[in-house]
């Protein structure tokens, strides 16, 4: 807070200089770009272009800086500080705005919203009756399925990529390919899931249903979209995050750990299971939490595969809904209290992902501090 007050004062002091600064900044920026890129713009010698330190202007040597120049310099620093702070404020601002718009629904339904399972815009003489329990359940259940699949796969992939089972050049390529999974747009996963994954999973789901229908979680006949395909697509989408962070925390462990374990006669896998994985455990958990946060907030792919039914069903083959896909589906046609109710659901989602992300970031930062 002190820092904030300080930066605010600086901002006030140097407000006049900003117009001047912005102009010079723009001129400088354009100048740099013209200097760098006019001569020979081509990707091959980009590193050559940026290699040279710009020449010093002769008049700058042997002269003390003018008061204006000094003020300008402080102004520049203050400006970057202001923008950096604006990122932190943006987070609060987003939360504040969404919560503000949700206020009518919060007043109307209170905390009962979290345990009510009705979603009916025409109830109460057209006022509507809303509760988010089915979507909260669907969000947690689909993320849970995603984690059940992605955690074992991701962690063992991470182990494979952090050890020297295969030559390091191939490993680099494979690591890059796992990262590419994260780059594919969510809507492409949705399209692929709709036309490829669901038809592929249907015989498998039907077989499980026929064999095990006495177990409630397999208790309904698979009709296509549902919790299970949504969970599978989410698991594919969070695999790269879990793998990347687990691999990083395994690869960054001090080599002494491995040497000591091997020196005591441990085999490679004894070393991995008893020494390396426990040492990197918090990093791995951090990665899993980040994956969970991503799975809970994922919208488009889940919307296309989950079936969008606002009813709670224990069966994983039944259609369900997540908070994010509820918002994506209903927002364009919503009005009045329904908008506020959707915003309220958004606040619930925001808080859920925020808690998960903050814990994850905290764990990951602790791990980074430990081995640096």
């Amino acid at each position: 807070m002190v820092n904030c007050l300080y930066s605010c004062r600086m901002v006030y002091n140097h407000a006049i200089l900003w117009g001047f600064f912005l102009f010079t900044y723009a001129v400088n920026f354009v100048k740099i770009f013209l200097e760098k890129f006019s001569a020979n713009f081509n990707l091959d010698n980009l590193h050559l272009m940026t290699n040279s330190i710009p020449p010093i202007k002769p008049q700058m040597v042997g002269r003390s800086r003018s008061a204006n120049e000094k003020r300008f310099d402080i102004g520049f620093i203050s400006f970057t500080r202001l923008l950096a702070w604006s990122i932190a404020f943006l987070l609060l601002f987003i939360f504040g705005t969404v919560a503000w718009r949700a206020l009518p629904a919060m007043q109307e339904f209170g905390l009962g919203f979290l345990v009510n399972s009705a979603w009916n815009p025409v109830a109460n003489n057209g006022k509507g009756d809303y509760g988010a329990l089915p979507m909260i359940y669907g969000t947690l259940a689909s993320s849970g399925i995603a984690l059940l699949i992605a955690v074992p796969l991701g962690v063992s992939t991470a182990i494979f990529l952090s050890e020297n089972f295969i030559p390091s050049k191939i490993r680099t390529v494979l690591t890059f390919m796992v990262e590419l999974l994260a780059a594919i747009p969510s809507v492409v996963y949705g399209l692929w899931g709709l036309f490829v994954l669901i038809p592929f999973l249907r015989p498998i789901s039907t077989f499980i249903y026929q064999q095990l229908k006495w177990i409630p979680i397999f208790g309904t006949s698979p009709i296509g979209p549902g919790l299970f395909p949504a969970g599978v697509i989410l698991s594919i989408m969070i695999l790269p995050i879990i793998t990347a962070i687990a691999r990083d925390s395994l690869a960054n462990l001090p080599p002494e750990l491995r040497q000591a374990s091997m020196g005591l006669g441990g085999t490679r896998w004894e070393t991995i299971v008893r020494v390396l994985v426990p040492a990197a455990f918090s990093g791995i958990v951090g990665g899993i939490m980040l994956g969970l946060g991503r799975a809970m907030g994922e919208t488009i792919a889940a919307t296309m595969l989950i079936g969008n039914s606002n009813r709670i069903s224990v069966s994983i083959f039944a259609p369900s809904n997540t908070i994010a896909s509820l918002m994506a589906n209903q927002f364009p046609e919503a009005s009045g209290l329904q908008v506020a109710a959707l915003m309220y659901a958004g606040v619930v989602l925001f808080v859920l992902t925020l808690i998960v992300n903050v814990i994850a970031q905290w764990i990951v930062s602790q791990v980074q501090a430990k081995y640096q």
Partner: protein
Amino acid sequence: MLTHDNRLIMTDSLKKRTSSRNILEIVLTGIAGASLVATLIPLFAVISYVIIKGGKHFNLDLFTKLPPVAGQTTGGVASAILGTILVVSIAGAIAIPVGILAAIYLSEFSSAEQKTARTIRFATNVLSGVPSVIAGVFAYSVIVLAMGKFSTLAGGMALSVLMLPTIISTTDEALKIVPQDVRWASVGIGASNYQTVLQVVLPAALPAILTGVTLAIARAAGETAPLLFTVIFTNSWPQGPLSQTLPSLAYLVFEFARGFDPVLQEFAWAASLVLVLLVLVTSILARWMTRQKVYE
């Protein structure tokens, strides 16, 4: 005799344990390798399906014509490509300068205020985990409700929220890699802070910063969710930043995939191919660019 026997038994048991351990080692290695294969199967499955199904319409028409209307079987997604460029340009115009300058503060000027820098880095990381729907309703609440209508501008702003964390963290990392000597040299010959940063440090980190920016742009181009709350989808040409309607590649895939017209579904695959090629090319280019170091 006794010692000899003992030794024999020891070697024997040692051998036995070793071989059972070896089998376990091989099995576990096999499981780990199989996990890697299982992880990569979806990547190849998605890419190959997109190429096979989208390749059918991957021709000049795709980049020059409008989507087919009822009865037609040929056309393109040119309007959506233009619309995507428009909305991502708006997002970039907001997120790139703000992100780079914020990262300059974090990396260059925050040495006396470590706590502040930690807070802001933490906020950036948390911001990267904010769901894209939330960015959408945020832009809806701030811009759409203020202007009284949906607009491409609001869509661009929602996307900029999602671009910011990527740009900040990659720029931050890129600036950290520039050796301290370079800054000392610059200050030593009399350059002021902004001269050092803008004329020496920033150009040195430019390849890595461009990488981050390119990745952020590619991700933003593939985002659909924020646009659901901020623009109305259309097949026709984009009408400028204040227009309510916007054609966008990702939105087009979403709309056409949920529709029941098989011709339009084919174009959903073709548009996906364009999106996937965009992210593949930018990711590979980014990978290649980050290996180019300015100062060794």
